[in-house]
């Protein structure tokens, strides 16, 4: 794509009412930052979800099982044309109403007929799957795979079709279309599905606890997208895309055959239920009677005010304008600006998930998240209604064990992260009432003991998201 085209695209997005007035499930915030640079990425082969955020308000995940290989391949052949590459999605983003991505578990690749020798060349953690890695990931107790929903813990989970749509009507239309495909292939079973819905206010992305979301995202070198100020350098493509040089400067050998693995990405799916009632009770209990005090506790858990304003830059008082300003809301670091954690506690969510300049080899631990909220919002002031609501997201990376599993095992669930001794991520760690949160404060720190669980893992899986050519190969077309 020529530079002129990118400018037009960016302009179109900025002027689009959907993009300025709607919550973006796929998100496009970063697209406005686009500037073209020469890259070596095969944008016509990469599935769009790796790089492109689409202007969607709704979505649906369908989790599939292939009872017969030929039926699975027939299903894939039928849906393949709807899976847009980065290039196609960019060219058509203004007129498209919905976007489809397709990915497979290791069992799914086997069910489609990939031979044993090739299957053996995929990384061990992907072959084992998320269920087998549960203990190390901290998926124990209430988060244990035995309690997962939707058949996600089953070895019969073979594939996911990810749909993002501009609105509810488009989702319905695309869903019916998919059902038509499925009707032709009775050997393909829908294990479960999940509808994704944004909820008001629609002018920015946020989740059920009320935090502004999608503030921090690594950008892939050569993608044409630039990281926002303070987000760190662009990341070498190999950190996300197989067949590209990674941050070690090396080209890591690909799983076989190359036609299957090239331009593929691994994805960890996480469906996290959010316990909004428990979260609000906690804010009231520990933040005192004033809304300001409660907002401060919410900010200390996250490391940002719910407006998105980072505590490092706004330690005392919320600054919503700062939170909404992508030129400023990532422009901070920790080692010099907040070494003791007086602004952002060492154990706060964003300080764990991206320790910025306080972790070694940070560029080798970056992840791209794609996903959305599900379930209805819990109205402010309403008691917990027990309804399942939360975030269902895919974490994209080139190496599950080095990126996703490291984040789960160390950043999120290692009680001794930053030598904290007895803490886990206060929002997404495996909390069982025995861990603490230390909030550094002069003259003496505040320690909250016995943190409750604000989230519960309801399901997860490891997927491989092949390139477009690889999808054709899997469908038996090449």
């Amino acid at each position, binding site marked *: 794509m020529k530079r002129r085209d990118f400018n037009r695209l960016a302009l179109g997005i900025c002027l689009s009412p959907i993009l300025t007035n709607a919550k973006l499930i796929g998100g496009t915030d970063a697209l406005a930052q686009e500037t073209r640079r020469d890259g070596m990425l095969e944008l016509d082969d990469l599935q769009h979800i790796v790089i492109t955020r689409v202007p969607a308000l709704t979505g649906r995940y369908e989790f599939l099982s292939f009872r017969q290989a030929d039926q699975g391949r027939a299903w894939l052949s039928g849906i393949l044309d709807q899976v847009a590459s980065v290039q196609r999605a960019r060219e058509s983003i203004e007129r498209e109403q919905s976007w489809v991505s397709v990915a497979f578990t290791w069992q799914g690749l086997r069910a489609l007929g990939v031979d044993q020798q090739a299957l053996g060349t995929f990384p061990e*953690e992907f072959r084992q799957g998320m269920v087998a*890695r549960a*203990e*190390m990931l*901290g998926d*124990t*107790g*209430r*988060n244990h795979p035995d309690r997962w929903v939707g058949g996600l813990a089953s070895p019969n989970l073979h594939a996911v079709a990810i749909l993002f749509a501009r609105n509810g009507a488009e989702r319905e239309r695309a869903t019916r279309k998919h059902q038509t495909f499925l009707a032709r292939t009775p050997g393909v079973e829908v294990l479960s599905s999940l509808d994704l819905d944004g909820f008001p206010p629609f002018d920015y992305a946020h989740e059920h606890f009320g935090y502004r979301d999608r503030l921090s995202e690594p950008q892939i070198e050569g993608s044409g997208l630039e990281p926002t100020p303070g987000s760190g350098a662009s990341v070498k493509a190999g950190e996300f895309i197989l067949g590209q040089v990674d941050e*070690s400067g*090396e*080209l*890591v*050998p690909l799983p076989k055959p190359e036609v299957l693995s090239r331009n593929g990405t691994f994805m960890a799916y996480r469906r996290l239920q959010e*316990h909004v*009632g*428990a979260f609000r*009770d*906690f804010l009231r*209990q520990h933040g005192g009677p004033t809304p300001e005090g409660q907002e401060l506790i919410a900010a200390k858990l996250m490391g940002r005010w719910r407006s998105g304003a980072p505590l490092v830059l706004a330690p005392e008082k919320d600054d919503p304008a700062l939170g909404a300003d992508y030129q400023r809301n990532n422009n901070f670091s920790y080692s010099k600006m907040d070494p003791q954690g007086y602004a952002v506690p060492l154990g706060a969510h964003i300080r764990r998930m991206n320790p910025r300049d306080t972790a*070694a*080899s940070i560029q*080798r631990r970056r992840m791209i998240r794609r996903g959305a909220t599900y379930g209805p919002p819990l109205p402010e002031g309403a008691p*917990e209604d027990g309804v399942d609501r939360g975030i269902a997201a895919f974490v994209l990376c080139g190496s599950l*064990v*080095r990126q996703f*599993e*490291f984040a789960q*095992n*160390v950043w999120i669930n*290692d*009680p*001794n992260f930053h*030598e904290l*001794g*007895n803490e886990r991520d206060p929002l997404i760690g*495996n*909390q*069982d*009432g*025995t861990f603490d949160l230390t909030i550094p404060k002069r003259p003496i720190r505040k320690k*909250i*003991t*016995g*943190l*409750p*669980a604000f989230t519960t893992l309801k399901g997860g899986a490891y997927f491989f998201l092949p390139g477009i050519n690889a999808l054709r190969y899997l469908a038996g077309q090449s």
Partner: protein
Amino acid sequence: MSHDQIGTATRRDFLGTATAATALTLGASQGAGAQTASINSQEVQVAQLATGQSAQLTAPASLDWTKPTAMAIPKEGYFKLEQGRYGPIFPRTPANYGFTVIAKVKPGRESAIREYGKTIEEAVKANPNVLAPLRLHYLRWVMFDVGSGLHFMYQGIFDTDFDKYVEDAIALFNSTGITTVFVNLEGWPEDWRTNTLAVIKFFRDHQRPSFLEYGEYPYVTADEVRKSLSVKTALSTMLDQMQ
């Protein structure tokens, strides 16, 4: 919530790293105040030398740095199998984490390894923080031949679980050239530049777990030592200023 509910506490529990979880009703901070970590460590033998007791079957209620502590470790190197990302996790002991990697030196490579000691000395002199990501207390590099050929031993005591930060360590070995020592060892993977898994396997295969570890000031991290000495220095300065 009662900690009695945790029936299968691992040795890590008393280190404040409970992995066993029980169902907890949402919405209430019932765990508040439940600070004492679960203690159920039949598999642990901890000798509290300060109390004069011989090996006993209960763990200390807290990681008390004032009580010199010894810990006998089973042959496998761990008390209870707990999977890390790359294999079983080795426990934190009174002497913290660490490893002892022993491998045979390739013929004729002794001087190459020995000379590399000087290179590391210079590298640390030039940048005292160059090894900081390894979170080390001490390193000991030894070469010995007790009749079965020359061997190299890399013994490190550090504050993080090696499994957790192994890729960072390998990246550091590569960037500082420490890897140039390993290439002189038998069994080192030829494709180490692109095959991190093979490098990790080398370290795990050549790791020799301790069967006894002892800490005169147990479980204290290097960071805590540094902080304590800083406080002492600051106090001395303050007292000087009061004169």
